[in-house]
Structure formats: C-alpha cells, structure tokens
C-alpha cells in the first residue's frame, strides 16, 4: 500500500510532510492522522528539524475526514476514538508548523490547517467546515480555532451554513497570512520555514508558546507568561550571540544553547 504521508528532509532545518491520498482528496482517515502524529514525534526528537511544513496536493490540502470511517463509529466508538490523541499530539508540537494550503481545506482539513502556527494558501484555496451538511459538527477544533482566527460573525456563518470561503476572504479575515500562486505555495512555505530554522531555537520555541498563550489566558496572565519567557531567554548563549552579531554587523551563529 502506498504511503499516505510523504516525509521529506530535514534539509536546512525543515521537514516537509505531504498528505498523499490523492484518490480521496487527502481525506484524513485515522491511519493518515496517526502517521502524521508519529512523523511529528520524530520531528520533535530530531534536533536538526527546526520547523515543519505540512501540505497536500495542488487540488486539495485535505477535503475532510474519512466519512465511511466516521459512519462506522457509534457513540462508544467515538468516545474511544484514537483520533483525539493524534489531534492533541499535533497541537502540542513545540516547533513551528507552517501549513501550505492549495485547493480544498474542508472539515478536518481546515481544522488541521488551523493547527499550524502559520498558514499560507494558494489563490485556489477553499476553507470550510461543511460538517453541518452531514448532520454533524466540527470535532477537532473547528468551532474553537475558527472563531479565534476569523471572529464570531464569519465563524458562525461558516459553521452553520457549511459554505466555504476563498483565499481572499481567508486573508481578509485573518485565517491565513499570505496568498500565493498555487504553484509556489509550498516553495513559499519552505522559505518561511527555512527562515525560522535559522533563528535561535529556544527563542523560537518560547515565542511560539507565548503567542499561543494569547488564546488561553487573559491579558495580564499572558503578559506575565511573556515576561517570564523573555527572562528565561536571558540565560541562553544564543541571546548573547544574537546581540553580539547585531552590534558587530555580522550573521549570528546560533547553537540552540
């Protein structure tokens, strides 16, 4: 059976994961999600990997979950669903994730893309949570991450009607940070990932954590967390190197210490 997740790298500090179920528009079945979750385990453990890119095909990032698989689960089956652990694994990945979305990012595909720290998209991208059309609802953060990213008005509209939005709307609403020509989306994402891979790893890790805290905490606590992380960095060799290199007008040589 062909591998439904292609892994490339690390090269220049970046690992690329390509969802590869072309016949199913990269629908996220449990096997694929499990492979992604294990691939992230490896990426986390590998000090050479500083950032990851997740992408699909030109036609589809991921067009949802696997409906047949879902239909086969009853109430107890859903309570014991192994997918929950996979989603949590993706959510807890400490290094930056960049999603490069071309074509459909629907349902679970949209939810996966929203797990990324940075999301860019091809002009042909379509984002949506069409679960409501099937008598179900988003179950992997679709109602929660979407509302934080695009605001309640658009999130309600999308989740209750199931209507997708295009890349322009997604950019306007703040769901993505950049639109590219579809042929260049992955290349752009890799460029972004490489740029991050050249930064001081501990600073990157703490920055990611700190930005994400903004969604979990009130401002005062968030500021406290940020200050704490900022202070922690003061003890790193890379901070010294970064400041020295800036003063000496040279490129810093970060070691991750």
């Amino acid at each position, binding site marked *: 059976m062909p591998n439904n997740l292609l892994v490339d790298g690390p090269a220049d500090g970046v690992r690329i994961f390509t969802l590869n179920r072309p016949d199913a528009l990269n629908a996220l079945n449990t096997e694929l999600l499990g492979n992604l979750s294990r691939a992230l385990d490896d990426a986390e453990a590998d000090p050479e990997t500083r950032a990851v890119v997740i992408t699909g095909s030109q036609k589809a990032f991921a067009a949802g979950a696997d409906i047949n698989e879902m239909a086969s689960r009853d109430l107890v089956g859903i309570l014991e669903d192994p997918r929950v652990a996979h989603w949590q694994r993706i959510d807890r990945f400490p290094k930056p994730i960049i999603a490069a979305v071309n074509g459909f990012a629907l349902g679970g595909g949209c939810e996966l893309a929203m797990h990324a720290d940075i999301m860019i998209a091809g002009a042909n991208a379509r984002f949506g949570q069409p679960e409501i059309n099937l008598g179900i609802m988003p179950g992997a953060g679709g109602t929660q991450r979407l509302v934080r990213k695009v605001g309640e008005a658009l999130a309600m509209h999308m989740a209750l009607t199931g209507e997708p939005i295009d890349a322009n709307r997604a950019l306007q609403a703040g769901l993505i940070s950049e639109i*590219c*020509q579809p*042929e*260049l989306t992955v290349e752009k994402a890799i460029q972004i990932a490489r740029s991050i891979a050249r930064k001081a790893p501990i600073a990157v890790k703490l920055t990611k954590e700190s930005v994400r805290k903004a969604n979990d905490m009130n401002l005062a606590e968030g500021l406290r967390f940020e200050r704490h992380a900022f202070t922690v960095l003061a003890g790193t060799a890379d901070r010294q190197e970064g400041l020295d290199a800036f003063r000496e007008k040279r490129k810093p040589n970060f070691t991750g210490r």
Partner: protein
Amino acid sequence: MTQPSILLEIDQGVAMLTLNRPDNLNSFNVEMHEQMRDAVSKVRKDSSVRVLVITGAGRGFCAGQDLSDRSVAPGQEAPDLGESLEKYYNPLMRSLRDLPMPVLCAVNGVAAGAGANIALACDITLAARSASFVQAFCKLGLVPDSGGTWTLPRVAGMARAKGMALLGDKIGAEQAESWGMIWRCVDNEALMEETMKLAKHFASQPTKGLALIKRALHASASNTFEEQLNLERDLQRMAGRSEDYREGVAAFMEKRTPTFKGK
C-alpha cells in the same frame, strides 16, 4: 435526433466551440448551459488544446438568456434569477476566465445580454462589421450580468459603460473597435479566416507563458502596484521554469525559429 446546442471540435491544438441554437439566436437555455459546461471542461482537461475559439452558428452570436425559458405570468411568484446566475452563468464566466490558454471570440452577429458579456470577457474578441453588442438588461428592468458590470467599465471606460448599461443601445462592431472594447472589427466574409489565422498562431505559441500573462492581467484589476510587482515576480519565476522559455532562449541564440510545446 435533435442538434446539439454546443458543437466542439478539437484539431491540432485549436478547440472550436460553436453556440448552436441558430433558430433562437443561440440564446441560452438549461440544455445549452449544460453542454457548454461540459465543452469548456473538456477543453480545460485536454492538454493538447492551446487555444479556444468561441463563435455562434447562423446569423447571431448569442442573444443571452432564452426568455421563453423565463416567462413570468402575472400573479406568479417572482423567479429567482440569482439562482440561474449562481448555477450556470457565474461558473461559466469563471471557467472561461480561468482557462490556461488564449480564448478567442468571433462575434459573427448580434451579441446581446449575457451573450455580449461573454464575448467581451474573452481574451481576444473579433467582430464582423455587421455584428453588434447590446446590453439589453436595462430594458427588462434587470442588471447586466455574466460579469458585464465588471467587464464594461474596464474595456470601455465608466462613461461608456454607463451609457451602454443604462440605455441599452446597440453598439456596432466598428464603434466597439474604436472604443477599445474588442481587438478588431473585420469584414463579415473575412471573420472566420482572420479568427482561424490567429487561432493557428496561438496554437504554436508558448501557451503556459500566455496563461501566466492572462493571470497577471486579470489580477491587475484588484491589485495595488506593489502587489502586482510581487505577482509579476512570482509568475516570471514560474515562466522561467517552462520548457518553452528554454526553447525560446535557445532558438534566439541559435538564430532559428522556436518550436514551442505549450509547456
């Protein structure tokens, strides 16, 4: 057997699409829409096609919507015209606009309503001297659709767009040419010959590069100068990777005629 409403012939890189309801001035009904959709999708999927030509059978090009499909009796509930746009005209306009090859239009006679706007949305539009363009919508209490309100100000300027859309006057092919709405107006008997000459030319050109040019020009409508410069950079990057670019440069250096494959 009834005649198909759309004829499609593909030969040596040229796809020839003929609107074929001549007794109704090639106006659209549901059947014609469905055949049109299939034909455009076939053109899109056929990698041998390097140019699409659209023309009409008989004396007209296209009279837009077939109104006999849409009569509203007094007291009857108002029809949802938005639905027919959503379902047929808008997807058609999007798919024509997105075709990665030049789309030529040979306007052989009257182009009215949606028919006019389809003709004006093509990349290169030629019209027979006796052809005409009519934004008939205003005379029925409707709004120009099929992209008309977007296309008209861009091809003709706002003053003329408003004149055409609010008055619904017939604009002759020569007038359309002098206003810059179409590429050329030619004698009636020369229309197909001139069109095919262009089609054959395009069938030998670097199609991928031409498709990227179209994308850039389309995007310019909503981009800032800065965004457009970035887009040109990205598209040029892609164009530079095409086989045809290599061939073009090689042929130039070797002082010979390039043989483009459209890739």
